[in-house]
């Protein structure tokens, strides 16, 4: 785990935000994880980014709260966040706990199980898209998050409106000329 102090702060603030039911704050905290995940490419930092984003999504969806198993699921999140905070404060590695957290909160019966799994999957794609936006290549990013390039390309493609040519980047006409020449 890299940037431990930053991750500790994120979990502490996330815990407060969960208690307050402040999902927008959890979402904002999840954005803070993008930078560390992109720079370090550390699997634990990436797992943190996915988990915090997923928690914001779970809590945003009011209808989930009426499904059987929700109370146990919610309790598990809190228990694991406490455990992670405690381990980080004691200088322990949290990779194993992050893995168990995800495993346990996904291991839930009934309708909620499918939804939780879906949220995690979408969170991985969302975080991959953020890392790609940071300048890491499409393939590298897909491999870091364990998703296919097809999933990432489709998602990233939806967010291309702001793409602008860099100075000195070849123009469309220059590229067409390159192709014209080789097609001859």
């Amino acid at each position: 785990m890299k940037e431990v102090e930053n991750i500790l702060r994120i979990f502490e603030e996330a815990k407060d935000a969960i208690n307050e039911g402040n999902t927008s704050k959890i979402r904002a905290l999840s954005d803070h994880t993008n930078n560390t995940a992109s720079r370090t490419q550390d699997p634990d930092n990436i797992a943190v980014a996915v988990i915090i984003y997923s928690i914001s999504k779970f809590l945003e969806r009011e209808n989930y709260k009426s499904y059987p198993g929700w109370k146990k699921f919610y309790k598990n999140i809190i228990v694991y966040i406490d455990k992670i905070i405690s381990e980080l404060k004691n200088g322990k590695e949290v990779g194993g706990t992050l893995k168990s957290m995800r495993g346990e909160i996904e291991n839930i019966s009934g309708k909620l199980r499918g939804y939780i799994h879906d949220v995690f999957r979408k969170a991985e794609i969302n975080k991959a898209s953020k890392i790609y936006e940071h300048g890491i290549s499409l393939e590298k990013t897909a491999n870091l998050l364990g998703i296919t390039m097809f999933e990432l390309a489709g998602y990233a493609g939806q967010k291309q409106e702001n793409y602008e040519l860099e100075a000195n980047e070849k123009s469309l006409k220059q590229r067409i000329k390159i192709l014209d020449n080789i097609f001859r």
Partner: protein
Amino acid sequence: MKDKAIIFDASTIISFAMACMYEELRKLQKNFGGHFIITRDVKKEIIDKPMQIPRFQLEGIKLQELVNEKVLEFPDVLGVKDSEINIGTKKVMDIANSSFVDNRGKIKLISEGEASCVALSQILNARKIPNVLAIDERTMRSLCETPDGLKKHLERKMHTKIQVKKEKLHFFKEFKIIRSVELAYIAYKKGLIGTKGKNILSSLVNALRFKGCSISNDEIAEIKKMK
């Protein structure tokens, strides 16, 4: 068939596949009269992995068909051995993933598939075999064409100072890069697009863009005018 090649990285093939432009790829390859090449590392990303995932299995099967039909071929057709590409891939990855450094160390930018395409292009350049790289994703293209722009982008997004080892990046200057949108334009100009219609070119370009091809709004406006 002439000894000339378009080397496709995974991002470009994925754009074509997700826009269902398999037929256009077939016609383009026939019209090209040279080789459309993918490396073994690219095959892993565009065929082997999607074959394991129900949602993308169909794309995997259709792309495997293009390989079976020799629309997409492997570098050995040009006399390049996988072992040569593997050596080159390692070199490209070493350079690319050690040239941008922040206060915590090297920023790893690319993976084997992308690196293998550049390695192959370098081998073909050395053998005087005309070739271009087809790359839709932004990072590898920026690395080759606008490393200063990539540095600024990384600094802006990562909120940190980045040092660039420019002497290493000269390696990337020799490569010629195109994208799926330019290939679609060529297909359009040559009458190789099966579907007809008034807005077909802009529809193709938009489809490719939304499947991952990095193209700016200005370029889209430009391509519409070029009809």
